[in-house]
């Protein structure tokens, strides 16, 4: 589904990603871990098409198409969803109207007619139940005055509504208390299927107890330096990142 080859990217001339290779197939869950500043969130931003990030080398294919060639909204319509590390507030824009617009834009992209109001509301209700999302939040303005946890939950609710093929979750667990973490994880697990895939960016192994990944990758200094299965996450939890850093330093030539 997603095929990243030798991806290099920079922000204002500073290299941030330095040759990422990653292959994600439908039905898989990949976790990306790594210390602060290793480039995890940058990878998410590059995949979603944030303007400040300039791809300097490499390629990204999504479902056989060149992802980097698409505008952010086209990527979204093709089925790439980013759950934001910091979801933004948009005052006065109702959550429901926003979702309706988004759903219909995506449908239009696939040549489908806009959803009828009744069908849309039914879907809204069904997903709201599935995701245990607070109906009061649904009726408010988009993230306006939401707590950090409520914003994250709203993002996951949007994910349920938009039914993406590939969901990238950028530190969705940060700022969530245990209960919210449990609800969000349960929601994600319900959305997992053989047709979609998840890339979960996180600092902590804790989230991966709830959403069990098929693969775990360690990102350090703009590169994936180690890949493994869920056991790798446990090892990281135990030992921290320093042992990996030490290994890498040995490999890197002294400048």
């Amino acid at each position: 589904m997603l095929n990243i080859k030798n991806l290099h990217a920079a922000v204002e001339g500073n290299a941030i990603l330095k040759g990422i290779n990653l292959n994600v197939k439908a039905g898989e869950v990949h976790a990306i871990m790594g210390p602060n500043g290793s480039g995890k969130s940058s990878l998410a931003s590059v995949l979603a098409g944030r303007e400040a990030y300039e791809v300097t080398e490499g390629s990204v294919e999504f479902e056989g198409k060149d992802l980097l060639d698409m505008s952010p909204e086209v990527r979204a319509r093709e089925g790439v969803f980013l759950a934001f590390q910091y979801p933004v507030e948009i005052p006065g824009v109702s959550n429901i109207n926003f979702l309706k617009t988004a759903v219909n834009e995506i449908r239009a992209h696939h040549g489908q007619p806009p959803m009828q109001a009744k069908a849309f509301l039914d879907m809204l209700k069904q997903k709201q139940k599935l995701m245990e999302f607070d109906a009061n939040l649904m009726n408010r303005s988009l993230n306006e005055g939401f707590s950090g946890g409520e914003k994250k939950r709203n993002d996951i609710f949007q994910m349920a509504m938009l039914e993406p093929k590939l969901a990238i979750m950028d530190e969705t667990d940060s700022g969530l208390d245990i209960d919210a973490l449990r609800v969000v994880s349960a929601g994600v697990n319900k959305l997992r299927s053989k047709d979609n895939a998840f890339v979960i960016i996180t600092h902590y192994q804790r989230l991966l107890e709830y959403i069990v990944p098929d693969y775990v990758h360690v990102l350090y200094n703009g590169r994936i330096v180690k890949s493994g299965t869920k056991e790798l996450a446990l090892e990281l939890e135990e030992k921290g990142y320093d042992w990996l850093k030490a290994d890498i330093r040995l490999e890197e030539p002294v400048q």
Partner: protein
Amino acid sequence: MSAEQDILQELAGREYEFGFETQIEMDIAPPGLNEETIRFISMKKNEPEWLLEWRLKGYQLFKKLSMPTWQNFELPEVDFQGVSYYAAPKNKVKYESLDEVDPELLRTFEKLGIPLEEQKMLSGVAVDAVFDSISVATTFKKQLNELGIIFCSFGEAVQDHPELVKKYLGTVVPQSDNIYAALNCAVFSDGSFVYIPKGVRCPMELSTYFRINAKNTGQFERTLIIADEGSYVSYLEGCTAPMRDENQLHAAVVELIALDNAEIKYSTVQNWYPGDKDGKGGIYNFVTKRGICKGHHSKISWTQVETGSAITWKYPGVILQGDNSIGEFYSVAVTSKKQVADTGTKMVHIGKNTKSRIISKGISAVHGQNTYRGLVKIGPNASNARNFTQCDSLLIGDRCGAHTFPYIESKNNTAMVEHEATTSKIGEDQVFYLNQRGIDSEQAVNMIVNGYAKEVLNQLPMEFAVEAQKLLSITLEGSVG
């Protein structure tokens, strides 16, 4: 950032939708301002002597008054002698029914989306359409008459209800208020007149649609609305003009009078031609609008959506004379291209327990300059007066400007005045967030702006809210900041 540049450029180059001109035979006064012109207008309109005298007094004041110097923009030279002060479609001055109206004129209003024909009036809005200097048609007259409501052109009111006109004309905006108000007194052409009798709740929205068509003409309409004790009326005003290279002057005066327990809701959607992207042409919209809550427990509420005009310069205000009266001002002002808006309100608290509420939302894009200027004045007898002001500015792009000049004068220490202000930029983060959900940048900005202005748009009657929303989209479509 190049995407932003493209979109801003496209926005700057957007065409004005209502820029067409209607080819129709016109009766036009030669350009120039003097006593002769005033006598000519008065004669054409078959006015009584007292009104001519009143006009001439206005003209004397106009000659004495000087241009203001406090405004936050460069006041362009206005050639008062180069303007024609009277233009009316030829043939008939007064139409008895729509069948007599020139079909070309009706087509114009159709093009503007103003339904004049009775069968289209199911929407429940009574319309008075003013084309250059003349009121073309007033619909729904019969139904209104049955309730004793008077809704007609100003000219007709002078003929049919001179006592009401004489009693209230100039009582809210004195002839000497400012130079443009004085000019309007001298040369006002037509406008609307509304009288709601005691205890009557006007069952439909009353609406006037103003259109400047002829070249080199100004529009100087006058609107007078009187809500007698315990009555209610909601009044809407819309306006457009053709695209022209030269600037045209619109200097209107609106007076509202609310007696005991009466309520007037006045909504404006202003879409005069704003000029091109280089700032050439466009309407100078120099308007004086004021209401007086004369009676106790009366209420006047102004709602305005200002999207057009090269320069907008106006401060719809409320004099809160009656005890327990309420004044409200809700405004969205958009400046794009090289437009300038210096607008706000005046709330003058005189009576006890008077309340005012000001919600102003400025939006600036491209090279637009937006100024909020507001006065909240609490008189010595206005005990327990309350004011709440919220004044927000939204910037799109990095070459536009937002300015705020709030004035507060309080002479009563039991009064409470609150002022809140924010300035924000449409964030790239906000636009990207919406992009990431499949919404393109144009629509994203649209949603953000409409969300921002929602509190004000919510005040508009249904039919107008939709139009205003569309207008905001057209004016700002696709800007990213």
